[in-house]
């Protein structure tokens, strides 16, 4: 059995995440993203690789979406409404609630900015979302009889989840984007210790080790505060969701603490509607934000006011959140044109802006003049602050997660090729886990776990659960110096519990395999046990024994028989390690090996004629086949006893 992972996007790059995993006859598409750097067919994953005929419903068991970012969901309406996939789609409640806003926002920008032909319509988005089944965290969802999926908290953005999928005995996790450290509005990723064959992880920061996000947040707040304190205006171009709420929570909190009265505005595109969603989904935020919902919901922004166009030229400091992000057009660009020429003002930009946008131009170097179009040039004198905090885990976080889950195999996606190669090497060498970083449209094939099923009898289970203590003596002489007074060995007993399950597996035609305890087998067959044992009557030179005996003064046993056994016991304890010698007075026992002094001169088991019978004492030994090796070892010790002591 194998797991095949076909990487349709985010292979050695960031953008259009899409991995199709086949395991045990099920086929799951994880994420269905778009690449915003392209405007042709390359923006979407190459869906034809899933099914040439275009019958996606029979080619895929389900789609799982990790979060509402466009590089993870952007191609979904296209895939369902244009390509015609109509099977089940799973995502978390917040993702289902927020994704349509995100998609609609993007659709508008594309149509507005580029006058582009629509890839999908508003109706497409609505129809697409109707196919979505919302899931809660940790809820085990049975997609069908054989496939189970489960979402785990991933941090990153509201509603982001890692997904666990299991078919039969084969299991895997696809992380999507995640963050291993909590920030002000979201918690850290959380997952159970699972038994996994495969982990597919993002690797945006494959080689970066970052300090805490708090520091970077402080930098942003300081920059904003400095600007408004100097009477300047702050423009924060954002999309409707995610970053806008995150930054606004930061500002609200800061305004409260610093007792600032300067207005914070939301442009009309950023409706309070989005905040409404966040308010209802507050249980998906960080612990701190969650705790205060009843007295004050953190997304009930107290300082935030609505902005209208007439206020652009109004005097005085303010902070304005305006759509769309990246200054790609629309209202945010309109405001930028007005505010950019003043060095008092500030514009904040995210770490990533799509190529071709004003935001992208501003970030490449520090231009003082920007070409808006062929005829217009704009003086840019305002300050520009780049938001350096990003809700992705760093290299340490990825390593920690891989180590914690200890999957049998790792695949890295969603990162930059050279950095991924470095991380791949580390996972391989430091954790000893095979790792791949396939490029787009490559398939990685790994083997999967499979168990053979059988029915086990109670007696077998019981016997397997019985503790099986092994005693091993570590003999050390008593170091207290009383050697003469009490020549005793102080055995230090080491106890280990080596539970082994031993039983018998039976296969009968047309019946499920069954496991029995050994004793049950004969009962089932109606047969009697026929014991097969070995026996050997072993001679030991008696003169040597007597000699040794006289020097030992601590023999408690009075009869000769006992004392000889005692001597033999001492001898054997020294020679065989691991075996536990049990002394029953009349006989000794090691596992099934039994020794007793033989006084029967006509004993059948005296197979070998001893040269000097008169000086020999015979020890009768018997054992069963399980201890064959041990038995012959002991016998050879006994037979060599006399030679050694001279």
């Amino acid at each position, binding site marked *: 059995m194998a797991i095949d992972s076909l990487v349709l996007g985010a292979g050695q790059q960031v953008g259009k995440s899409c991995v199709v995993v086949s395991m045990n006859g099920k086929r799951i598409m994880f994420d269905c993203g778009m690449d915003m750097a392209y405007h042709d067919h390359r923006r979407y994953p190459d869906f034809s690789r899933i099914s040439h005929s275009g019958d996606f419903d029979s080619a895929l068991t389900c789609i799982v979406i990790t979060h509402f970012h466009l590089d993870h969901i952007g191609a979904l309406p296209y895939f369902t409404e244009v390509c015609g996939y109509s099977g089940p789609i799973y995502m978390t*409640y917040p993702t*289902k*609630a927020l994704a349509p806003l995100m998609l609609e926002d993007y659709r508008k920008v594309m149509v507005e900015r580029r006058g582009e032909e629509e890839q999908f319509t508003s109706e497409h988005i609505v129809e697409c*979302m109707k196919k979505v089944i*919302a899931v*809660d*965290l*940790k*809820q*085990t*969802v049975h997609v069908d009889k054989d496939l189970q999926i489960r979402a785990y908290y991933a941090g990153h953005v509201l509603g982001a989840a890692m997904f666990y999928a299991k078919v039969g005995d084969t299991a895997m996790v696809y992380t999507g984007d995640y963050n291993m450290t909590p920030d002000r509005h979201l918690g850290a990723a959380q997952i159970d210790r699972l*038994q996994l064959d495969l982990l597919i992880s993002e690797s945006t920061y494959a080689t970066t080790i970052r300090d805490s996000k708090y520091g970077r947040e402080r930098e942003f707040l300081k920059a904003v505060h400095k600007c408004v304190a100097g009477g300047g205006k702050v423009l924060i171009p954002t999309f409707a969701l995610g970053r806008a709420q995150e930054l606004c929570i930061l500002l609200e909190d800061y305004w409260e603490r610093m007792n600032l009265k300067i207005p914070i505005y939301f442009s009309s595109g950023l409706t309070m509607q989005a905040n*409404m*969603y966040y*308010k*209802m989904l*507050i*249980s998906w935020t960080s612990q701190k934000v969650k705790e205060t*919902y*009843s*007295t004050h*919901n953190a997304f009930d922004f107290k300082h935030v006011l609505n902005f209208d166009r007439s206020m652009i030229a109004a005097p005085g400091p303010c902070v304005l959140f305006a759509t769309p992000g990246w200054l790609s057009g629309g209202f945010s660009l309109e405001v930028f044109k007005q505010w950019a020429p003043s060095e008092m003002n500030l514009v904040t930009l995210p770490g990533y802006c799509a190529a071709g946008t004003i935001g992208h131009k501003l970030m490449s170097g520090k231009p003082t003049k920007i070409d808006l179009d062929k005829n217009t040039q704009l003086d840019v004198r305002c300050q520009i602050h780049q938001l350096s905090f990003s809700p992705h885990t760093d290299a340490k976080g990825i390593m920690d997660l891989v180590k914690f889950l200890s999957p049998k195999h790792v695949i890295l996606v969603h990162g930059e090729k050279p950095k991924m190669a470095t991380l791949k090497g580390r996972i391989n060498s430091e954790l000893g886990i095979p790792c791949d970083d396939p490029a787009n449209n490559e398939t990685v094939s790994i083997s999967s*776990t499979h*168990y*053979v*099923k*059988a*029915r*086990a*009898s*109670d007696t077998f*289970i019981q016997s397997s659960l019985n503790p099986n203590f092994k005693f091993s003596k570590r003999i050390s002489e008593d170091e207290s110096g009383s050697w003469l007074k009490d020549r005793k060995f102080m055995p230090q007993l080491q106890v280990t519990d080596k*539970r*082994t*399950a*031993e039983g*018998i*597996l039976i*296969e*009968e*035609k047309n019946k499920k395999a069954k*496991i029995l305890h*050994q004793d049950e087998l*004969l009962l089932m*067959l109606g*047969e009697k*046990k*026929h014991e*097969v*044992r*070995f026996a*050997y*009557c072993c001679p030991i030179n008696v003169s040597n024994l007597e000699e040794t005996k006289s020097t030992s003064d601590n023999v408690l046993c009075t009869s000769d028989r006992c004392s000889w056994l005692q001597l033999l016991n001492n001898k054997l304890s020294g020679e065989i390690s691991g075996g536990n010698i049990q002394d029953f007075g009349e006989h000794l026992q090691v596992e099934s090996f039994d020794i007793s002094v033989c006084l029967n001169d006509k004993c059948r*088991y005296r*197979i*070998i004629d001893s040269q000097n019978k008169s000086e020999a004492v015979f020890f009768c030994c018997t054992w*069963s086949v*399980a201890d*064959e090796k041990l038995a*012959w070892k002991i016998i050879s010790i006994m037979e060599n006893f006399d030679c050694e002591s001279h």
Partner: protein
Amino acid sequence: MGMLGLPFLTRMKGFSAKIYVTEVTARLGQLMMEELVSMHMEFRQFYGPEGSSFPQWMSWEELELLPSALREVVLGKDGTELGAWVPLYSAADVTDCTQKFQTLRYAEETCYNGTLMIKAFSSGLEIGTCNWTINGPKRDVAFISNSIFLPAHAMKFDYRSLQSNDIVLYSDFSSLDAMENVEDDDGFSIPTTDSMSTLSTDNNNNNWEESVESLLYTDENLEEQEKLSYLCYCAIDSLKVGGSVLIPINRLGTLLQLLEQISASLESSTLKVPIYVISSIAEELLAYTNVIPEWLCKERQEKLFSGEPLFSHVELIKDKKLHVFPAVHSPKLLTNWQEPCIVFAPHWSLRLGPVVHFLRCWCGDPNSLLVLESRLDAELALLPFKPMAMKVLQCSFLSGIKLQKVQPLLKILQPKIVLLPEDLRQQTRFTNANSFSVIHYSENASIRIPSLKDSSELEIATDLALRFQWRNLKHENMNVTRLKGELSVYHGKQRLLSGSEQAKSSKIRPLLHWGSPDLEKLLNILSNIGINGSVEQCMGNVESEKACIVHVHEPKKALIEVGTSTIISAGDENLASKIFEAIDKVLEGI
């Protein structure tokens, strides 16, 4: 509400168990326990003894002095009367209790002790209420408590997830209450045998399940809706003539729905009347219900997806139509107060909480209306407020599975054994068509449930399975192999793993033999490998004990005793081992 007694248990000395509970039930339960404690505190401030101690009589010191017969009169047999009275738990007891919670979401798997998988599935009764399944290697049990198929606020009864459990423990007692109210009504009996048996004839047909399901979803929702409308109608009637309406808070779901219904009725009646919710936990309770969309019914979840508040009380509060105060004496309440009005307040027993205050005010007003749950003994509840001029409306809302739905439900669940309360024995006459057996249980009596499996499922790791050395048993036509590994129990699954001890030798000798050896055959096999000897017959006392000895003299001296058991005696390992192999061939073994 099934949780309010919990601190009594958890505060007992030595209690250390984990308590599994859904996230929402944990939160709501904690709020309700805290409210109870605070109302009780307030009550004691007014009427109780000074200081923080509970009344002297509760320690029963004087009782010890009484003769035993008298003591029994006071305490009741087995202490079930006054003897069972204990002081209410404290806020600290509540905190202690909630710290033992292990919270779960619906369909979240949790594992107890490696062997039991525990899951909660929505029961539909209230937000966060659940039924449980417990799955172990040997038993699968589904526990069903009061459940509602199509509730108007909470997530619906997820009975499909309770399918394929061997045992169903049914403990929805709500139909018993319903019975008392409609005595002599035969309408509650199980649907006729004919319709059920015709349904069950084509079992493999999916239509069968569908038609049974349609039976479960009969319009109980509509019925509930009508009750609410009637209640609103009565409330508006009272308000129109200048009376106020007092509604003791009982179930959360009823409160949430009434808030919506009554405000809508007010809207359409053009009456400008304020609604007050007066409870120490109301603010948090109402805020909380609006941030748990994952726990609500489909219709409410749709509101999330379209960006509307989950419950209309959010808007009502914003529009100042609904006012929420922690207590009667809240300063803001005094300035805001306006009559006539509608008041929701605890406690439904009418002995505790703000409701007592309002009842005192309005019990003499014939225009005012009090709404009570009919399960309550109204006579007793209203005794301190007599004479009552106030109108009283008693109504009951659905609080569980209706009796006629029990059988269809069990048909869908397909258990092997159903455990039903003894009290339901009369009401549920099952047809013979059932595939399950029924066992009745009653209070304080334990019953033994027959074991359904004598074996359990075990999974064997592939690498271990690949090392098997199969032997074919001649007469039974079966293959057997010895198996050795490490048994691990992981998430309720038993697995046999190859363990640390790898199989060292490829030659595994059979350890267990049976059958009786054929002496001639043995000698043949021995001579084929160059071992020769002579046979000495030894007669035992009984024929069956007949044994003989083979004296081997080639290649070396050795001896084989063959009888009901075999003993091999040889002077060196190699020879002994060869003889053993020969013996193995004339016996059966593993």
